[in-house]
């Protein structure tokens, strides 16, 4: 049975890592992830894990060392965010192509420039096509739970893909929360032993990893990776069921909050979903049937399930909140995927995009409530004709509010 403790998101991540007790960790510090590396270093130096810890000289080398380590058959983890994740970018694709089951907490932070240390999702969204499974976490509890499940998902024989577990920089990583943790032995039993079929340290069977794959082979490798993403979906649910049996905490592809009879629905990742739950409750008190859909799994994208959830008769308008932009002029990454998922549905509600909170800009309760106000107008008459609204930011020039789809705070 779980035990109640108070931990920050970073502490929860480090705590889970200690319980998972990977064979190797190679990591590099970066705000706001640094604490994970620091806490884990203490575990290593105090002999509380058997992990060999590689204090690499960069995130590029962190991911490279993780690739070497996992290829050698070791359960391997790292952690990063922002510029660190950007520096890893080249290696992220190689890790997934090698089908290495790495697990990595990502403490979401804006990408430079300008340089900024606060939360948004540009970093992880920049890696959304890298072949990594992405899990998002609203709270320290979810960080902890997702990390433990991530090991099982990544290493599953039908999957063999790396997993990143995202949480909001500072908001979650540095906020103290009450959460429930499981005993060390329970976690150890849940994650089990890692026994890869192929690795570099088999004296009987030398292997070549990472050969040149030309026109005759590259495409098949990529196709298999795409297939593994499909395979991951039932595995993610099966691992969640097992986890629920152990802990009583239930997980799926997304959390549907007061969705059963919702008319106006917001979709948002990570900690903002927490504030949105408050907004939904408040709106419900005022008589508006508001609801929230909080994706937990963004890669693979559970588009069928999401389309089912968002095209239920009765849903009149949907707002997708993105803490990242694609700079395509057509809104954020979550918006684009959600909208694409709905395209084939016979009857679909209008979907609007709200880009918010870049570089840690606070998103207020009132602003989130106002999004539902917009949705009411959208449901009535289509609302504003721009699909993308920038929430809580100064307009490019004064007098340009409507044209730029920008709402002043």
């Amino acid at each position, binding site marked *: 049975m779980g035990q109640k403790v108070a931990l920050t998101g970073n502490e929860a991540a480090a705590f889970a890592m200690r319980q998972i007790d990977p064979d190797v960790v190679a990591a590099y510090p970066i705000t706001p992830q640094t604490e994970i590396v620091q806490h884990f270093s203490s575990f290593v130096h105090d002999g509380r894990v058997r992990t060999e810890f590689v204090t690499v000289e*960069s995130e590029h080398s962190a991911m490279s060392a993780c690739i*070497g380590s996992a290829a050698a058959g070791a359960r391997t983890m790292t952690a990063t965010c922002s510029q660190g994740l950007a520096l890893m970018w080249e290696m992220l694709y190689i890790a997934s192509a090698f089908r290495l089951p790495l697990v990595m907490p990502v403490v979401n932070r804006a990408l430079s420039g300008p340089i900024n240390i606060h939360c948004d999702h540009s970093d992880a969204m920049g890696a959304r096509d890298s072949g990594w499974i992405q899990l998002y976490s609203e709270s320290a509890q979810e960080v902890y739970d997702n990390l433990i499940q991530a090991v099982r998902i990544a290493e599953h024989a039908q999957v063999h893909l790396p997993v990143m577990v995202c949480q909001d920089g500072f908001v979650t990583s540095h906020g103290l929360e009450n959460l429930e943790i499981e005993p060390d032995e329970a976690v150890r039993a849940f994650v089990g032993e890692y026994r890869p079929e192929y690795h570099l*340290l088999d004296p009987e069977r*030398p292997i*070549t990893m*990472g*050969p*040149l794959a030309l026109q005759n082979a590259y495409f098949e490798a990529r196709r298999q990776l795409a297939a593994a993403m499909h395979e991951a979906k039932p595995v993610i649910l099966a691992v969640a069921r097992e986890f629920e049996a152990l802990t009583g905490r239930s997980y799926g592809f997304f959390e549907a909050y007061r969705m059963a009879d919702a008319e106006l629905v917001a979709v948002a990742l990570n900690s903002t979903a927490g504030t949105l739950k408050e907004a939904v409750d408040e709106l419900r008190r005022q008589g508006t049937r508001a609801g929230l859909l909080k994706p937990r799994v963004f890669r693979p994208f559970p588009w069928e399930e999401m389309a089912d959830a968002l095209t239920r008769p009765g849903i009149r308008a949907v707002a997708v909140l993105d803490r990242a932009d694609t700079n395509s002029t057509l809104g954020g990454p979550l918006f684009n995927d959600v909208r694409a998922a709905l395209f084939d549905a016979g009857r679909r509600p209008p979907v609007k995009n709200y880009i918010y909170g870049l570089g840690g800009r606070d998103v207020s309760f009132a602003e989130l409530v106002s999004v539902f106000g917009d949705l009411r107008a959208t449901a009535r008459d289509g609302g504003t004709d721009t699909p993308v609204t920038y929430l809580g930011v100064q307009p490019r020039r004064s007098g340009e509010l409507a044209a730029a789809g920008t709402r002043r705070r």
Partner: protein
Amino acid sequence: MPGTLKDLSRRPSLLTAGHRLCAGCGAPIAIRQLLLAAGTGLVISNATGCVEVGTTIYPQTAWNVSWIHSAFENAAATMSGVETAYRSLKKQGKVRADFRFVALGGDGGTYDIGFQALSGAVERGHRMVYVCYDNGAYMNTGIQRSSATPLGADTTTSPAGTRIPGKPGHRKDLTAIMAAHDVPYVAQASPSHWQDLVAKMEKALAADGPAFLNVLAPCPRGWRHESSETIEVARLAVDTCFWPLYEVAKGAWRLTYRPGKKKPLDEWLKLQGRFAHLFRPGGEAIRQELQAWVDRKWAELVARCA
């Protein structure tokens, strides 16, 4: 000490025939010699470059040992991970066999883009032998200059133009830089002196910590010499003192070979098309500057080894 040529020829060949490197390429010659010292129980990590591309075109591989390539700039970092995994799994009894670790990179993957990863890995003390096969340019992408390219050499990004005649500056002295990392063993070797090379690899593998070997690897394509003359070109690089053979073992510098008579650099330069423009009118000053650089570096090295 390495065995006789006959002994060595009986050892298993870990890099087999059937690779696609150019005829006369110095790199596989040097690597096969190196691996004779290693024996089995080896993992190799290879940076992107001619050797990687030429030995592992899926579904074929020329390697008889476990081998990993992940990217261009990170052979040392990748190997850090493999070596660390080995220590972890060995400690837990999950791996029983003994392994040794060799990272392999070209000069581009070592002097330039991979330098940070190399410096970091040796500072951390991973027990691995990092071998740079130095052919003095990015050969795989079509002979672009690197920081190992000698002054004046004609490459596709330092062409022998009418205004700028080849590569503008001298090459980086990477072997000395690695010695400055104060690792247990650093050496410079050449496939023309196979016994010296194999002996150095044995010492590198026996070192209690990271070791670095810089091995000259003539490239008939890029240097524009006859593919039958690879070993001769390598030998002249040693005898002109362009590529001195020495080692730094636990901080002690030692020449492992001293040419009977130091030959003029021109003898080496004139074998190679990449320096041909230096033998035309106006090229003499650069040849003199190159000779002066070799003389100075040699004198410094001799003094250090005294």
